[in-house]
């Protein structure tokens, strides 16, 4: 799967760079939202086929917030550590890390708040977070645990990286990933504004 993902990503980049227009491929690229919808529908079917999953999730109660809490706190600490390494201010560094993988929103918002260069860094770094999550999920599921697979994916765990979750973890983790994605996505604009205001 990882090899397939690498081939697909590199192939897509090369196709995009080449400027060649193959109508079927262009149609696919223009309608990637529909592919995502189909994927989510299929993932939903897998979850629905797993009996008693919601009862198992309910057993967690407040503990369901542990994963988004760990991801947000870890990302902010990581952003703060990046500040002296990259020469950016604490505010700028934590803002970039607050994107939690949501590259489109982070790139635009931070670009408006702190300039085009930091906006581009926010875009690229959060894009990398999404892309590298595809490749980090398999080894994390083997060497750490299923729940930790959600950590690198952060806000993307409710959509694009969910397919890797369902392949390398279990249905319960997939439901937790969706919940985490909702919390993290809601937190991104708040965190960016807070980091801009506080630090």
């Amino acid at each position: 799967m990882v090899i397939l993902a690498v081939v697909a990503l590199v192939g897509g980049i090369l196709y995009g760079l080449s400027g060649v227009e193959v109508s079927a491929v262009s149609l696919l690229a223009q309608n990637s939202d529909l592919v995502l919808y189909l994927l989510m529908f299929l993932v939903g079917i897998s979850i629905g086929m797993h009996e008693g999953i919601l009862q198992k999730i309910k057993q967690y109660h407040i503990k369901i917030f542990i994963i988004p809490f760990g991801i947000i706190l870890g990302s902010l600490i990581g952003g703060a550590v990046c500040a002296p390494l990259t020469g950016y201010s604490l505010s700028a560094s934590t803002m970039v890390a607050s994107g939690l993988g949501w590259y489109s929103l982070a790139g635009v918002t931070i670009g408006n708040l702190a300039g085009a260069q930091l906006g581009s860094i926010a875009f690229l770094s959060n894009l990398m977070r999404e892309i590298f999550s595809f490749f980090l999920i398999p080894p994390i599921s083997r060497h750490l645990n299923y729940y930790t697979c959600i950590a690198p994916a952060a806000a993307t765990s409710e959509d694009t990286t969910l397919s890797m979750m369902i392949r390398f973890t279990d249905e319960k983790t997939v439901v937790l990933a969706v919940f985490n994605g909702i919390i993290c996505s809601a937190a991104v604009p708040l965190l960016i504004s807070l980091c801009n205001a506080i630090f």
Partner: protein
Amino acid sequence: MDVILVMCAGVLVGSWFFPKKYKKVNERLQVVCTVALIFCMGVTLGRREGFLEELSTLGLQSFLFFLIPSLFSVALVYPLTCRFMNGREKRNKRR
């Protein structure tokens, strides 16, 4: 939000109508969709104006901003889930 609604529709179909014998077909289709989605992401990136220039000038800093927050997230989530969610038992032994 619409993605979540589509997934909920899938959950309903999966729990009420979907025949169990097509479980494998569903899994294979998920792989096809995932690969297609990653390919589309690549195409979007490749078509982005000045993508290679951006990557060469800001790539290292962007990589640090991806890597370190991701590592810290993993470093926090792993012990927390082991302590509070029985995470030690949930490990993939098959693949």
